[in-house]
């Protein structure tokens, strides 16, 4: 085919396709789409704990873990803050027991991490089932 014929064929094709128009869905198609969207919205997934909530939980857990590691062998956290000096805990004697060995701290970190990971997996699984 020459270039001119090719151009002519292109022009004929364009005209023919535009003449033939589009296929049309059945009547009420738009309403069905909107109904389906609205139905899904009624059962829309809203997480119990929002994203920022998870960030706060994660920050708190991290802070607690760091504190536990930092003060486990030397002194209690409350002693470090000077709270023990101000309040007399001598009768309770709980604070002095709040001491963790390196092994305990390690186990606690691992447990927290695994719980968080498990929560993430369970959340993902339920979300998938919901969808």
């Amino acid at each position, binding site marked *: 085919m020459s270039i001119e014929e090719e151009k002519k064929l292109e022009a004929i094709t364009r005209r023919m*396709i535009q003449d033939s128009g589009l296929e049309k869905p059945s009547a009420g198609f738009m309403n069905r789409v909107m109904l389906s969207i609205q139905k899904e*919205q009624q059962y829309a997934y809203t997480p119990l704990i929002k994203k920022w909530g998870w960030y706060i939980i994660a920050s708190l857990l991290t802070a607690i873990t760091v504190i536990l590691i930092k003060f486990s062998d030397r002194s209690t956290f409350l002693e470090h803050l000077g709270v023990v000096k101000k309040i007399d805990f001598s009768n309770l004697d709980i604070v002095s027991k709040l001491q963790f060995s390196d092994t305990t701290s390690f186990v606690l970190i691992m447990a927290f991490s695994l719980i968080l990971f498990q929560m993430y997996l369970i959340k993902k699984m339920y979300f998938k089932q919901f969808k």
Partner: protein
Amino acid sequence: MTNLTDHNYIEKTLQGDTLAFSNLVEKYQDMVFSIAFKLLRNREEAEDAAQDAFVKCYHSLPKFKGEAKFSSWLYRIVYNTSLDRLKANKKSLGDMVVDEISEGELESVETTLNYIEGKERSAIIKAAVEKLPSEEQVLILLYYFEELSLREITEVVDISLENIKVRLFRSRKKLFKLLKNEVEFLKRSV
């Protein structure tokens, strides 16, 4: 870039006005349905696919950044949704052999088509287009009807620019041959 009207509807939808999305559905329903129909070749299945595509589009709207045209993005969703349905039904996209178009054939077919009445001509063209492989029908629709550029078509279908050019060239020739057959059949039956 997305045109202003689409952009406004998208913004309103994202702000929680679900009904604003119905304007987008109304505007694009024929094109979205046509793409699905060309791939699936069944009206019921095509309607289901088109509906799925609009619902997916609605849910993915927050991810739409407006870098591409909204229409191209939507067409890609319906194209992929229809292909998934095709795979699930294990249907394949057919193909046919193309012969060369000889000189004089072009004018003869065009003249005959011009003599035919609008509705009948439209039916003949539709019948010829429907005999093309599904993917080529979509390419023809996007290029000649929707007048998307080749680069925009690459955003809709997973085919390289060069490949689209080749396929469009082949489709044109096939379509012409199919139309010639339809016209000849019509001449014989008159």
